[in-house]
């Protein structure tokens, strides 16, 4: 068992004021993962310009941890190159939220999976022609 009390202040803050809720119109990539029968579904849309993720929005059906990790991952990817974004894992998202109760770690996998799916979708759409981030 776990207590809702175990959620960190940061998780609660993101749950209460989730960042970047919604859907980007004509996104560069989108990913929907999870399944309502299992209790968690997340849809992530990203906008990529010059190989950099310039915007990200999410919609999530799920528990507090699922919503907070969704919100956090949208914050984390903004400004990152595709390569950098691929280094984001469920663990780094959870760490950015000051941790999750152990049995809630699986909810953060949703955020990682949605990000990977959105990037995959972006790559498919650009069919390898994705323009590399400008090194400066």
């Amino acid at each position, binding site marked *: *068992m*776990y207590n*809702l009390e175990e*959620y960190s202040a940061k998780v*609660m803050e993101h*749950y*209460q004021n*989730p960042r970047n*809720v919604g859907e980007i119109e004509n996104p560069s990539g989108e990913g*929907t993962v999870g399944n*309502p*029968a*299992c*209790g*968690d*579904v*997340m*849809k992530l849309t990203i906008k990529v310009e010059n190989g950099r993720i310039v915007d990200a929005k999410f*919609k*999530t*059906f*799920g*528990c*507090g*941890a*699922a*919503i907070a990790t969704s919100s956090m991952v949208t914050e984390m990817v903004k400004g990152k190159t595709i390569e950098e974004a691929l280094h984001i894992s469920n663990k780094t998202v959870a760490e950015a939220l000051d941790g999750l109760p152990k*049995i*809630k770690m*699986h*909810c953060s996998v949703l955020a990682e999976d949605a990000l990977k799916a959105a990037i995959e979708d972006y790559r498919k759409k650009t069919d390898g022609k994705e323009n590399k981030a400008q090194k400066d």
Partner: protein
Amino acid sequence: MKIIYMDHNATTPLDAEVLEAMMPYLTDKFGNPSSSTHAYGWEARRAVDEARSQVAGLIGAHPEEIIFTSGATEADNLAIKGVAHAYRDRGNHIITSQIEHKAVLETCKFLEKEGFKVTYIPVDRYGMVDPEEVRRAITDKTILISIMFVNSEVGTIEPVEKIGEIAREKGVLFHSDAVQGAGKIETKVDKLKADLLSISGHKMYGPKGIGALYMKKGVKIEPLLHGGGHERGLRAGTENVPGIIGLGKACQKAGKVMKAEAIRLTKLRNRLYQGVMKRIKRVYLNGHSEKRLPGNLNLSFEFVEGESLILSLKDFAISSGSACTSSSLKSSYVLLAMKVQEALSHCSLRICLGRSNTEDEVDYLVEELSKNVARLREMSPLYKEV
């Protein structure tokens, strides 16, 4: 602001009169009821006897038919293991339902390991056991039927009278876990035709850690605890005197206020239900619309996960039927047994009103629900897709 408590099926606050009745037994009147040689013991014994009568009074039993236990978990264990072990020579088959409390289900599972056979009767979509299905499950090896009176999650009132009748007709003992019914709706052992019945103090404004098992005269059980011969040798251990006094007082008070309170809570719950249905679309009732515990409401808000909704209702203490706690998100086994769609089973909220709740609180909950359901649906990727 104090958090508004609406989780009365989980536990209830201690009634002030109950505490008052208990106080002397936590302080000056500390005697051991077994101390037969002095006044400290005598007064404790008298108080325990009176509490026994009060408990018996609430459920229409004789005081000698009441065994005090540490709670309903123990009462359920004592009833089921006690009968199983005492009647082993008669048969090895037990019938129960899929939606019992874990105190019954896990006890039955344990007995399966000892070689007993258990039939877990399914329920319909309202959480109701069909008495005829119980009848069909009876074999010449059946020694016990255990079906709860009121389900703690969805509030469904089971047709226990009919099941008791069938049990009696077939000569099988009948136990009912009446924890959620006793003190809230009329719970009489002769009407329910129960041979054994479990109750718990903390679900009826009494203290935690005290309960009782009713056992009809003539029924035999094997005790769980052996020792100094307390409770007619059926439950050894120096009596939890303050707890027992508290349970007795809680039963007495419940007997007095129950009828009016059941009417008030039914109205209050209907107000809540109607308020929600008027303001929020795509809400589904779990459980039975009429055969239902007065204060209980169990609702699924489509497209909104239960825990996230509870988190948003900061001013309320309520619970959810879904628990996103394991790698495979588990829904309540009660909702699953009722074949509630899995997607909806994750969206359930259990609201249990009690003595302290008011119309204002209920109206405030409707307000908060409608606000937060809208917000969370706006956030839900499933919502737009309908």
